[in-house]
């Protein structure tokens, strides 16, 4: 039984119509629809809402086939028999076609058609048993959790704005904003770690009063922002929290986190560029055939994408210039010198923020004003976004944070605030006062370059801090290490408590007889891998050249042969097969 209904023969009759109940049928089939209005049993949900919600469950259609005697009911899509489903679908389709011609009152025709359409919509879309409403809810939940996941774990905040920048200014300028976002994340993690393990415990269980915990009006040691505020007892407060140890270890962990995070980002980026690095093979074909994003469905998105492709086609090459990063340290032999250092660095950080803001005002904004007011668009023109300077500013600012971290633990949180302000500030300033750069540069490698610079800055900034921690004795009057002769004694304190076998092992490991050879071996291993890597690089460069040569050589030969063929044809010589077949000899 195919379930087909002969179209020409059947006519459908309205069998019965009642309030909330109507019945249509033809010889073989009957459609009965009952009312779906139900009292809402969900508190807070009005009747209408409930009905809309439960429509997918409560829609009740009965159709009986007189041929097969099958009665099939629609109830949330739970069908026993697929054949009967198709039969019913076919019937409803047919019904829709012909109900226009039925001699019924208009209102009934409309109603009937609506019901049939509703039925079809439900059934053809849901031959499986997933409840449509639940399914959509599930999808919505999945969508939001994916978005949250993206935002939290892969830093997708400001995606829209960065895309806009990329569309208008190109990937070079957008790389600055991406880098800014990376720094934001870094500082956020640093700040949270420091706050949770150092500042919060100090505030909650420390001996200092809570009132002093917040930002004081004078830059005095008695704020959580500075080293001097923190307690030095081995076990602090009633919770026996080992604050000095926590201070030391948290700093260490935070630095380690930064190093690892930067290195990992670099390696991920590096792998990515290596994989797609051979876009160099067919750059134009790729751009022409593969750049359109067909999943864009809004007018805005289309405009942006067109603009991005347009800027992408204007290919040029510049290399960003580097300038040495200045790192200055200061040292004081006053009492509570750590806090003094912390204050100084704090001031420099604030100055840096002010400078960033004023710099843009004084250059791009001023220039834009002049151009607009004095009509100098032709002579002077608007300024371009200075990528190199801006990125170096960011790196400098981050270096300050790392320098000051030990002396002023909450600096990363200041940095977070600064970066957020800076993002929006530079974004709107760029939109208002900058024009896209004339020369485009490939930003795929520049991201790695920025990270490399950042890592270098981090390592450089660690040196003065390490010196301060190891060489200079902590001040006697303040801070978590005031009771110790050396800061690293805080670790040795703990080590003294370890079991003897562990203590002995550690002593042996730390003895020069062991760790000097270990260091030497590590250096050798590094040198070996370096040598290997550079030899691989040479091999790859060689192969690339070979490939390129062969490709162009091959083309040249083929072109030559084609030209030769063309010549012979022109001169209308008798066909000389040897000339057609013979190609220039291989060298």
């Amino acid at each position: 039984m195919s379930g087909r209904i002969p179209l020409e023969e059947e006519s459908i009759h309205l069998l019965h119509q009642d309030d909330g109940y109507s019945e249509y049928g033809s010889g073989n089939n009957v459609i009965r629809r009952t009312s779906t209005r139900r009292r809402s049993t969900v508190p807070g949900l009005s009747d209408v809402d409930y009905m809309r919600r439960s429509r997918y469950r409560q829609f009740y259609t009965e159709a009986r086939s007189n041929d097969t005697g099958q009665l099939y009911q629609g109830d949330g899509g739970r069908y026993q028999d697929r054949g009967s489903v198709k039969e019913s679908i076919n019937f409803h389709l047919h019904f829709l076609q012909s109900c226009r011609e039925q001699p019924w009152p208009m209102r009934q025709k409309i109603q009937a058609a609506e019901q049939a359409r509703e039925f079809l919509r439900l059934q053809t879309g849901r031959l499986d048993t997933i409840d449509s409403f639940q399914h959509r809810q599930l999808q919505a939940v999945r969508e939001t959790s994916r978005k949250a996941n993206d935002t939290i774990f892969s830093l997708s905040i400001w995606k829209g704005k960065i895309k806009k920048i990329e569309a208008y200014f190109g990937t070079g300028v957008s790389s600055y904003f991406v880098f800014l976002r990376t720094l934001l994340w870094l500082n956020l993690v640093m700040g949270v770690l420091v706050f949770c393990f150092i500042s919060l415990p100090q505030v909650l269980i420390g001996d200092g009063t809570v009132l002093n915990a917040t930002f004081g009006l004078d830059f005095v040691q008695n704020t959580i922002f500075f080293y001097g505020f923190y307690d030095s007892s081995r076990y602090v407060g009633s919770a026996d929290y080992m604050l000095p140890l926590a201070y030391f270890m948290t700093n260490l962990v935070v630095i380690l986190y930064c190093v690892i995070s930067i290195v990992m980002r670099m390696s991920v980026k590096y792998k990515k560029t290596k994989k797609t690095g051979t876009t160099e093979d067919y750059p134009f074909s790729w751009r022409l055939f593969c750049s359109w994003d067909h999943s864009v469905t809004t007018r805005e998105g289309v405009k942006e994408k067109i603009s991005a492709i347009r800027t992408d086609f204007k290919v040029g090459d510049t290399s960003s210039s580097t300038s040495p990063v200045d790192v200055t340290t200061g040292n004081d032999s006053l009492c509570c010198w750590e806090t003094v250092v912390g204050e100084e660095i704090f001031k420099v950080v604030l100055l840096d923020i002010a400078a960033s803001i004023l710099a843009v005002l004084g250059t791009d904004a001023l220039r834009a004003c002049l151009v607009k007011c004095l009509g100098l668009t032709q002579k002077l023109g608007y300024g371009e976004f200075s990528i190199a300077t801006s990125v170096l500013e960011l790196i400098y600012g981050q270096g300050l944070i790392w320098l000051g971290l030990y002396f002023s633990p909450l600096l990363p949180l200041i940095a977070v605030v600064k970066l957020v302000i800076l993002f929006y500030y530079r974004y709107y300033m760029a939109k208002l006062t900058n024009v896209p750069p004339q020369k485009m540069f490939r930003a795929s490698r520049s991201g790695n370059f920025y990270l490399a610079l950042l890592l270098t800055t981090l390592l450089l900034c660690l040196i003065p801090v390490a010196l301060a921690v190891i060489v200079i004795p902590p001040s006697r009057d303040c801070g978590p290490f005031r009771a110790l002769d050396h800061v690293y004694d805080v670790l040795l304190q703990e080590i003294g408590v370890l079991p003897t076998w562990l203590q002995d092992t550690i002593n042996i490991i730390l003895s020069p007889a062991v760790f000097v050879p270990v260091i030497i071996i590590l250096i050798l291993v590094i040198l070996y891998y370096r040598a290997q890597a550079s030899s691989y690089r040479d091999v790859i460069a060689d192969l690339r050249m070979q490939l390129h040569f062969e490709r162009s050589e091959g083309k040249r030969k083929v072109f030559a042969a084609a030209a030769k063929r063309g010549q012979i044809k022109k001169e209308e010589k008798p066909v000389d097969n040897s000339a057609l077949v013979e190609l220039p000899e291989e060298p």
Partner: protein
Amino acid sequence: MGSKASILLQDEEVSEIQRETGFSHNQIVRLYSRFTSLDKTNNGFLSREDFLRIPELAINPLGDRIVHAFFQESNDDSVNFRQFMRTLARFRPIKTNRLNELNSRDEKLKFAFKMYDLDGDDKISREELLAVLHMMVGANISEEQLGSIADRTIAEADQDGDSMISFEEFAKAMERVDVEQKMSIRFLH
């Protein structure tokens, strides 16, 4: 108004399409309902206007090209359901354990190639590239710039010296592109 062609989906037809394209039963029925909803004239065929009525296609600068590639299958000005399904089958993701006839990498590339080969002579000429560039990038790039882009594209890809891009050359240029991923749609079950 009278219905001419059979617009109802039969069992045999569904299983034939299943065999040919690899779509599941549910997917075919679902796509059939989509087909019928696009078919405003209700005659079992889709015309170009029916396609371009889809807002997402209408807004896509290459939408016309996509529709063009659809109609290559039927050599006609209309697409019936079988042809519709055959073309959509090319976008099925490639699964290693299932039969991949219509959705192989080659077939996907062929679809893409048809998008750019306007006159259907199995070669992409400079003029066709220029046409695509105009669609994609539009105004604000000078003709010479567009021309030079087209020239450089051909120079890159062309291997046999005819200043046009054949399908083999196209496939070679797309060698490192993840076509399997970029040209696949996950159809709902």
